[in-house]
């Protein structure tokens, strides 16, 4: 697909906006529909889109496997870590009340970080699955 100039240009133009949209969905989840999961899916879709236009090797250079695999684990750790932080500050597991100076700001902080964790893991997993399936096709063709 490398030859389609229009696609390449439009793709390059669109991708930043799509990423911004992913972040919008992530941070706006408190007020409108959306949240970590949807943001993660959109972010992964952006990278997959890039991969479809510029090819798998290009996208693998941009977002290497090692980073993706780390993301998969990191997001979950962040989420579970927020829970442990609740324990450390003297609350129950996943207690956000104790994370801030007053209960509501604690809740805000807790919700923000766990949504972040969700987004990281979800986009990592989606990307990894895409790499796995796409990479397989290649190795089979080689046979």
């Amino acid at each position, binding site marked *: 697909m490398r030859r389609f100039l229009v696609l390449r240009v439009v793709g390059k133009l669109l991708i930043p906006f799509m990423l911004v949209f992913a972040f919008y969905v992530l941070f706006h*989840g*408190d*007020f*409108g*529909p*959306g*949240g970590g*999961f*949807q943001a993660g*899916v*959109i972010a992964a*879709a952006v990278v*997959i889109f890039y991969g479809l236009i510029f090819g798998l090797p290009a996208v693998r250079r941009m977002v290497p496997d090692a980073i993706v*695999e780390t993301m*998969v*684990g990191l*997001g*979950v750790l962040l*989420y*579970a870590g927020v*829970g442990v932080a609740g324990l450390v500050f003297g609350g129950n*597991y*996943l207690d*956000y009340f104790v994370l801030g100076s007053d*209960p*509501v*700001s604690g*809740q*805000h902080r*807790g*919700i923000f970080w*766990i*949504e972040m*964790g*969700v987004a990281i*893991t*979800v986009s*990592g*997993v*989606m990307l*990894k*699955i*895409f790499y*796995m*399936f*796409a*990479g*397989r*096709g290649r*190795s*089979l063709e*080689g*046979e």
Partner: protein
Amino acid sequence: MAVTVFAIVLQRNLFSVVVLAGIYSFLMATVLVALDAVDVAMTEASVGAGISTVLLLGALYLCGGEEAKPMARPWLPLAVAAVIIGALVYGTLGLPAFSDPSAPIHVHVVPRYLNEALKETGVPNVVTAVLASYRGYDTLGEVMVVFTAGAGVIALLRRARKRVDEARQ
């Protein structure tokens, strides 16, 4: 929507099945918007129509797309289906009617979420408040499920690729 599903039942070309499944998910998302479940609709559209379709197409690309002829004796599945229809109809007949504000799900537990969530968590989207805070542990489990799937796919597909490499050598 029902028409799409029956088309899926009858259709034997797997590519059509996958596309129909995508359409089905979009229709489902529309219905969900009509039912005020915007968060769910958004997720269903991106997951059901987006991710699932991509995954299925990817798998078909690796596996080939025609289905062999269906099973010769569909009586057992039909019997199972009939029993389940019976049980569900029996069960749902006793449920509260559609949009009945005095149904138990509207008077128990939920009022606190709707009335207090903004005060207690500072988040106006009650779905987010319940998801991330009141039932935050469920969401941790949900992320764990995603993680399990990711790690599982890595475990399953990495090994075989190595095997293909070995076979080639």
